[in-house]
């Protein structure tokens, strides 16, 4: 791999002042304006010139090299994730939480006044918990009563089923009912099929 230094010709006839400046500018240019790899590969070369301190010459050649090095994909992805989660996650969350803790602050404990029923969010001290309880979560009482109602409904259905099973077992034991067991029939589905078939007939002209 050729470097810029080797490609610089006529080194001995260049005034030393220009050589010094050229070296300094080369060090700068590789960081600032010119592509890194191009400098390393010697495609772009800084050559000293009496009129200008620096002259960029593109030395086009067929001998282009590929810089073989390990992949930086994982490292770059890691940096992306770190930036994302810290800039958009940790820092805004820390700022918001600090603001809330400093300028709103936790509630103080007090006795429940006579005849007053506090709302669910007034049972918690921290402002964030209070907000969540007020706007996001279901309160303890709400969930409790929902569960009670659910159990009430389920229990009713269970009792119906248990009664049905007892009756069936008794009928099977005693075999004393004159009729066969009653099988409930619903013609809901037959009616629906008939109506659909009629609608199809009207629309399409045939079944």
């Amino acid at each position, binding site marked *: 791999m050729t470097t810029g230094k080797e490609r610089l010709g006529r080194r001995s006839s260049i005034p030393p002042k220009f050589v010094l400046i050229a070296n300094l500018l080369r060090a700068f240019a590789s960081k600032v304006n010119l592509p890194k790899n191009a400098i390393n590969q010697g495609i772009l070369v800084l050559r000293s010139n009496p009129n200008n301190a620096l002259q960029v010459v593109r030395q086009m050649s067929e001998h282009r090299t590929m810089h073989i090095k390990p992949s930086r994909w994982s490292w770059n992805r890691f940096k992306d994730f770190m930036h994302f989660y810290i800039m958009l996650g940790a820092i805004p969350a820390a700022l918001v939480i600090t603001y809330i803790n400093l*300028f709103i602050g936790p509630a103080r404990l007090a006795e429940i006044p006579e005849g007053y029923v506090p709302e669910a969010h*007034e049972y918690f001290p921290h402002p964030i918990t209070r907000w969540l309880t007020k706007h996001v979560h279901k309160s303890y009482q709400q969930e409790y009563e929902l569960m*009670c109602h659910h159990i009430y409904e389920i229990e009713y259905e269970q009792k119906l089923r248990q009664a049905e099973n007892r009756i069936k077992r008794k009928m099977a034991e005693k075999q004393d009912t004159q009729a066969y067991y009653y099988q409930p029939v619903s013609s809901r589905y037959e009616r629906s099929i008939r109506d659909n078939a009629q609608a199809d007939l009207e629309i399409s002209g045939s079944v």
Partner: protein
Amino acid sequence: MEDPPSLNDKSNSYVEFIKAVYRTVDRPVTWLREKVVVPNRPDNVYYHQKFRRVPTIDECYTDDRVCHFEAQQQFNRDKKVDGEIVQLVRQRYKECLIAEQPDHTRKCAKLQADFLKVSENFCMKYADLGPLNNVKDAYMKQKHRMLWERRHGKVGTGMKNQDAL
């Protein structure tokens, strides 16, 4: 025995110096908090929730599942409260032990008796029931204990022979 010496009794120039150094950091921060931060906060208040007593498991019919659910929830709440009571008594006993270290057998005897009594009562009601918090299991435990006590006398006095009733 007298109380151990504290910094509030007597002081010397070294102690005063240390206190002054502490104050250089503490005074501005305390002033800022008391005069600037706290008055500008909204004065929110929170309460401790009081729950109504509902019928316990022994007052519920056997087929009343809603009553069972409410008794179970009350049992859970009572267990938490009793657990906190035991924690408080234990903490007091521990603090006494640490503070009175060489004389703890003499000075903390009452707190020790209290703690043992409270934890014994807690274990009588809630312990050895398995991982699930079932109120019916606790009720049955009470029933079995009463039967055992009827047959053999108080718990801790040993079993009588098998055919005692």
